[in-house]
């Protein structure tokens, strides 16, 4: 029970910090809006008739999965920031499990990512993406799964980075290639063999595909857009998250103490 209370406390702290940082809230909307509005809009106007489905919708759903994954991953890196302004010492001397700290952090950053996603959904609806309450409900489990996968990916990155500065420099290199390999804006149904292999190995692929497989379920576009069955995506996300969290936490704690 004590550990559960601690998880909630750590999570609430991250969420409280987001609510008090208005610049961060605004900044988090800018990229998704550019991606959906500019990329989605232009691709829709030029390519849509060839691929046989609406590109704006395609990009919008992809960006939802990508934002949840990326925002949570980036949020986990803030454990390094804590370490640098020394708040993490307070967390690390407290008598709670190291896994509690990581899980609390992931849940907190999931809440942060969900808040940001809400803004993107509002923008999508304004520009005419068919997205209703039923979609929101059916995609909610996918949102949690995508955020959890992103969070555990963040832990693994965190465990291998020394300082906030190197984290900020290296993180984009680990995230941006995944945008394209996961097919956030580009169809990846058919790819050259090597790209195909890599694309099926990066974690973001499954977060994005889970979103699309649920959103397009039972529609004529399903076969053209979706890679895997939603349950298969969920299974891969579960396996990847578990591996990332276990190895990541182990390495993080070891690196923290073994200086």
């Amino acid at each position: 029970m004590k550990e559960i209370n601690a998880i909630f406390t750590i999570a609430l702290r991250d969420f409280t910090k987001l609510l008090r940082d208005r610049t961060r809230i605004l900044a988090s909307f800018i990229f998704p809006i550019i991606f959906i509005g500019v990329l989605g809009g232009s691709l829709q106007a030029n390519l849509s008739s060839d691929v046989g489905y609406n590109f704006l919708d395609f990009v919008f759903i992809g960006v939802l999965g990508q934002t949840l994954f990326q925002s949570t991953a980036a949020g986990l890196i803030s454990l390094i920031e804590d370490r640098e302004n020394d708040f993490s010492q307070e967390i690390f001397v407290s008598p709670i499990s190291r896994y509690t700290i990581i899980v609390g952090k992931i849940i907190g950053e999931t809440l942060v990512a969900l808040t940001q996603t809400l803004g993107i959904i509002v923008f999508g609806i304004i520009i005419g993406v068919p997205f209703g309450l039923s979609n929101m409900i059916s995609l909610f489990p996918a949102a949690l799964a995508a955020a959890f996968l992103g969070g555990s990916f963040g832990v693994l990155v965190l465990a291998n980075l020394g300082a906030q500065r190197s984290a900020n420099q290296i993180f984009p290199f680990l995230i941006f290639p995944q945008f394209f390999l996961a097919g956030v804006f580009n169809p990846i149904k058919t790819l050259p063999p090597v790209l195909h292999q890599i694309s099926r190995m990066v974690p973001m692929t499954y977060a994005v595909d889970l979103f699309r497989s649920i959103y397009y379920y039972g529609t004529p576009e399903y076969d053209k857009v979706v890679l895997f069955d939603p349950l298969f995506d969920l299974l891969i996300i579960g396996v990847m998250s578990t591996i990332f969290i276990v190895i990541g936490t182990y390495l993080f704690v070891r690196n923290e103490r073994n200086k």
Partner: protein
Amino acid sequence: MPKNNIIEVRNLVKKYKKSKINAVDDISFEVKEGEFFALLGPNGAGKTTTISVLTTTLAKTSGIVNIAGFDLDQNPSQVRESIGVIFQNPSLDKNLTAEENIRFHAILYGLYPFRPTFGLMPKAYKNKVDELAKLLGLEKEIFKPIKTYSGGMKRKLEIVRSLIHKPKIIFLDEPTSGLDPISRKSLWEYLMKVREEEKTTLFLTTHYLEEAEKADRVSIINNGKIVKIGTPSKIKQDLTREILIVDSKKRNALRDELLKNKIKFVENKHFDIDLKNKNAQKIIQSIKVPLSYLRTHTPTLEEAYLEIIRKETNGNEGN
């Protein structure tokens, strides 16, 4: 382990990964329950390293550490429950209010269940916050972000926070560094009051001699080794030896005479004679060469401390 030792450290060694030398080099000591123990040393002596190992945030290289009856390696969680830590760098979350910082700590230590807002917290917690706010003189500010607090206030808040889970030992890592003299004084008054009321064991690191003098026992650490350990007055006695300083226009004759009379001396600017177990009058009577300079000198504790640190440092460089 004797029952009243609350901290036991045996042959503790810490060598950082990227370093060739041991930051803490085979130190052993114990602290009794209720004792105020100070680790005194210059910057880089190994104080923070020692405290980081003792508070479980840094893994040691070798040695045995036992805190409040728990082995550091086998029961880190129980060790963490038994201690409160004031870090060298402030460890408050600047984005949160003082009350939120306290709440965060209280829930992490399992004192109260989690509730999302202050209003929903149990009555006992609210009363506790009221009490702490009064104690700190922060009745109005307790719900304000701590960004607005002064350095001294933040330190006090950290101490108050570290006390709410009633730790058996409080570790303070240079708690007054960066504070102005007035905040420092008031912080010490507060700490002494806490100690009297809670009977908590205090483990302090400092590079201020006058802070170490308040302790029951002091351990002087330099280059990762314990150089001296004992009560402040005992250390004072050991370190501050009276010396007799003499000189003569005929320096060679004076030197020969001192050697002939088997009086040990050190030739600095003048001739320094250690007066330990000796009588100054007898020494002077034994000198026939006319003296041009004569006085006795008792070094201050600070001079003695600097001297011991200097000697140690030079000695180690020689190795």
